[in-house]
């Protein structure tokens, strides 16, 4: 029927076929947009999610541009992972990589803090005394967690005496899990809070609450615990339809919300928190408390006169156009990420939508064309409601829901697939974004 040699021939044939398939897959990359030649000096303050993604994209689009990033942070933090670390689902190093891991070739990184921005002379000075002039400036330094604003609290308390603070970084998120674990074992009163300022990922305080509730249930100790969630205003989430859904979930999970409560101070020894409320102050005893401090723009932004004069005056976010992120008084400056003074968008998902807009603005300014991309306030929040389930909430400036998969993944349903996206697909998508590929 067949010759004795045929197996060998077939094997070779298949290996050859497999090899050519691999080669085909490797060569079928995306076609690159034509690059613009320029000698423009572009300075990006901040090499976090926004600064890094933008640098990678600008390198692809511009030929000959001098791109300099200024950022003292050696580590890059995958901040969406902090809620998972603080629930014992990932180790602290899950969120840590090096800033230099993600930067493209051909850009300069100055590992110093930006100290002064002079938007008139168009220069940036660093703490080390270097002064750089720029043609285009992007401010993407992130924000400052103002832990000192909570009286009686300091970061060295995290992990002990029932104090958690997952925003403070990977080690503090791991310590938060230590403190939360004790609460999960022993029960008592858990108090979950959020600040009165604008904040990054306003869903995270809710996620932490839901996750600790689920951990208590899994440990069989939910009956021993009481949970209070302190909202800073009259809602549980900025988007009304999502807020209503969370209210119903809280009802189901027996999590008691209190409104218009922001933390004024804590007494760590007595395990007592004092809230600012509409009528004055209110004290509450806790066995576990999760603290998120007020958040503000870095000093350099506020002192350089880039902030809004009539909005968020205690926080100092950059005065910029909602749709283009261009500074309203200095057209050579753009804001990107957490520091931007726009009503929504302090998440990594927002950065992903903002970066192409700033890229388009700068490339168009250089090429002398009209930019077309705009940012509509897109923000995404995979709202974890228990281990194994989440709601894929996406919305814009106008509180409209913007589901990525309408009819397939309903945004207000607790789904396993949304959990899979948060737990496994999100970091990969984030990493691809950092490299300018998504």
């Amino acid at each position, binding site marked *: 029927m067949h010759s004795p040699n045929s197996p060998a021939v077939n094997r070779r044939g298949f290996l050859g076929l*497999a090899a050519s398939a691999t080669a085909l897959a490797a060569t079928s990359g995306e076609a690159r947009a034509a690059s613009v030649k320029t000698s423009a000096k572009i300075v990006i303050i901040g090499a976090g999610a926004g600064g890094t993604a933008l640098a990678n994209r600008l390198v692809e689009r511009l030929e000959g541009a001098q791109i300099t990033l200024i950022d003292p942070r050696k580590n890059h933090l995958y901040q969406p992972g902090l809620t998972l670390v603080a629930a014992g689902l990932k180790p602290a190093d899950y969120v840590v990589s090096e800033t230099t891991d993600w930067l493209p070739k051909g850009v300069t990184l100055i590992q110093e803090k930006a100290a002064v921005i002079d938007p008139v002379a168009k220069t940036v000075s660093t703490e080390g005394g270097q002064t750089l002039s720029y043609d285009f400036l992007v401010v993407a330094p992130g924000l400052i967690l103002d832990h000192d604003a909570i009286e009686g609290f300091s970061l060295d308390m995290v992990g002990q005496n029932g104090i958690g603070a997952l925003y403070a970084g990977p080690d503090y998120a791991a310590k938060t899990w230590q403190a939360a674990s004790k609460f999960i074992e022993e029960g008592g009163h858990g108090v979950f809070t959020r600040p009165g300022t604008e904040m990054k990922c306003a869903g995270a305080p809710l996620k932490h609450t839901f996750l600790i509730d689920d951990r208590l249930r899994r440990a069989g100790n939910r009956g021993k615990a009481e949970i209070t969630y302190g909202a800073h205003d009259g809602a549980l989430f900025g988007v009304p339809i999502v807020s209503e859904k969370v209210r119903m979930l809280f009802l189901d999970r027996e999590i008691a919300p209190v409104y218009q409560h922001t933390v004024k101070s804590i007494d760590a020894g007595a395990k007592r928190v004092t809230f600012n409320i509409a009528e004055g102050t209110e004290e509450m005893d806790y066995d576990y408390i999760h603290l998120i401090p007020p958040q503000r723009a870095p000093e350099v932004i506020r002192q350089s006169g880039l902030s809004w004069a009539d909005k968020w005056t205690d926080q100092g976010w950059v005065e910029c156009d909602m749709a283009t992120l261009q500074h309203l008084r200095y057209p050579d400056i753009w804001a990107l990420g957490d520091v931007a003074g726009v009503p929504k968008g302090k998440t990594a998902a927002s950065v992903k939508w903002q970066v192409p807009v700033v890229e388009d603005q700068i490339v168009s300014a250089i090429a002398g064309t009209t930019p077309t991309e705009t940012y509509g306030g897109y923000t995404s929040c995979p709202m974890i409601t228990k281990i194994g389930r989440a709601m894929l909430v996406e919305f814009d400036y106008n509180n409209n829901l913007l589901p990525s998969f309408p009819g397939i993944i309903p945004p207000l349903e607790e789904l396993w*697939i949304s959990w899979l996206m948060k*737990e496994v*697909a999100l970091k*990969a*998508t984030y990493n*691809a974004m950092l490299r300018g590929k998504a």
Partner: protein
Amino acid sequence: MKDLTFQTLIAVFEEIFGRGLFWAMVVVAAVVTLAYLYVLIRDRAVSWRKFLWAQLSMPVGAVLAVWFVMAMTHSAPSDIGGAIDVIVFLGVAAMGAIGMAILVYTVQSLVKPPKAVTES
């Protein structure tokens, strides 16, 4: 999600399983598939006896695949909350079943090839 490219998809899978494990699984899947095609062509026929065993192994493959995905993602079957979850769940089970059937058939064929018809 803004856009889902092939590259993003690969990165997502690398993230789910870890780069080493993911590519090891891709290699194993490719080798098994090639070996399956190899035995089909070598034998020039499907052995229905082997195919029966392959079919019987399918539920085992389905359960193993579901268990694997659940364990890797801190999930449990009780987390299934909607239609799309059921589809994903069944998809994982189906892939496990088909993969197991191909594996079992191939291993049987490699270990116990059909007696060559010798022509004198």
